[in-house]
């Protein structure tokens, strides 16, 4: 059995998870801000984004990026399989991140926001200096759960030929006619989620606001 393949797969899985987590956090914050914006049209755009991505399967998103976008003829949209996976996973997860952060915004007491606005801070300044720091802190536990779900979801990237952990395990399994290698890959996935769960606990104890 080829352990180096599994090792390579783990690295790709971790890269995918890290990049799409960053992307989803950035996009998620933007969408959450849109949803609490003082303009009905902006709120509606944020709402459409979350509703759309929350109600379609991730696999459809990945297939759209990988099989459909190259057909537009736009050179910019001709992405490698890995980039497709990062964008697909990132944009999909961003919808859930946005919901979590919006809940965080709602948890910030109204007096805080009103005080900031009456001190002369603009809407974006209030978000940046008053609401977002508090919202992110109270959103740490659910964001952690999303990170673990994202790590599990990266296995779907194997379906668009990204050589991640699941892809390598399936490859070895097909070559040796022994699907039990998948169980080993499963154990590796569990082992990868454990340190994440531990780190979240640590961050939570240090920074989180109890809701």
């Amino acid at each position, binding site marked *: 059995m080829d352990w180096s393949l599994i090792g390579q797969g783990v690295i790709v899985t971790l890269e995918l998870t890290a990049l799409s987590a960053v992307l989803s956090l950035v996009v998620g914050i933007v969408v959450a801000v849109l949803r609490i914006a003082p303009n009905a049209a902006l709120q*509606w755009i944020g709402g*459409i984004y979350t*509703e*759309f991505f*929350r*109600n*379609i*399967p*991730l*696999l*459809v*998103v990945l*297939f*759209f990026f990988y*099989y*459909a*976008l190259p*057909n*537009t*003829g*736009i050179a910019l949209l001709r992405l490698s399989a890995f980039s497709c996976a990062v964008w697909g996973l990132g944009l*999909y*997860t961003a919808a*859930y991140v946005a919901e*979590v952060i919006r*809940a965080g915004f709602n948890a910030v007491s109204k007096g805080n926001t009103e005080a900031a606005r009456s001190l002369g801070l603009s809407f974006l300044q209030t978000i940046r200096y008053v609401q977002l720091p508090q919202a992110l802190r109270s959103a740490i*536990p*659910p964001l952690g*759960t*999303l990170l*673990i*779900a*994202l790590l*599990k*979801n990266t*296995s*779907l990237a*194997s*379906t668009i030929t990204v050589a991640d952990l*699941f892809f390598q*395990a*399936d490859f070895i*399994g097909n070559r040796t006619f022994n*699907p*039990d290698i*998948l*169980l080993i*890959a*499963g154990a590796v*996935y*569990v082992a990868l*989620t454990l340190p994440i769960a531990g780190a979240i606990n640590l961050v939570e104890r240090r920074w989180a606001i109890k*809701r």
Partner: protein
Amino acid sequence: MTQQNQTAPARAIIQHPAVKWLLQALGAAAFILLVPLVFKMQWANFKPLFTATSLRFLSLGMLATIVVSIEAIILSLPLATLLALGRISPIKWISWPCIAFIEVLRSLPLLLLIFYINLRFPGLTIFADVSVGSKGSFIELLITSILSQGGMATMVALTFYTAAVNAELLRSGILSLERGQAEAARSLGLSYRQTMQHVILPQAYRRILAPLIAQFTILVKDTSLGAIIGFLELLKRGQILYQRDFNPMETLYVIALIYFVINYCLGLTQKLVARRQPTVPKTLTDNLADI
């Protein structure tokens, strides 16, 4: 500032629920039409999708998706109840295996579970494998694709996975009940079994009804993973169509819209139920987010 310049009647009209709903519907229609423009989709590529054969082919997939999701959620409930009761049991040799089962299943990627069951248990089907060209009546084709190897493997994997998630959900429902409920039932002389059956579980189930519908939405989405092992559900059938007609973008867009409509309706049902029933506090189900 614009809001202050608006006269009171104008604001009243915009905020009227019917007008609001109409505006939102118009907006959604605009969005549905805008996406094809942005991605330069061609009307000629949409056409092959709206022929009678293609629609019949896709609706078979849609029904297969829905039926397998319903099977999985119904079959998962008895197992989930046992697991939840096992997990809160004070006896360690009952609770520990249940905890292990729940936690391991929840931290495995679902795709891995589906692949493993498909490869390890090749004899799940009671039919010979159906192929795309099979002939037969609508209902025959539906039943054979659901009971094919791919469909059965997907269903079994989803059942076990959903049982683990629902067990946690049910546990949060049970924990959200006041302790007095169980204590009162026991001191009235009800046995453990009677307490659970007549007092605790009915209330817990009512409280998790809305999150259960949310879980069903996730099931409908997760059924699409069956496409990878050859289960002829909605996504797989879409793939077959676009490989014939060379229109992946348009087909995937239509497929996405079908999933969206199904799940959006489920989401509305969930909101309706949550408004009528006492529901578990969201903080208890937060860590179950399973996407």
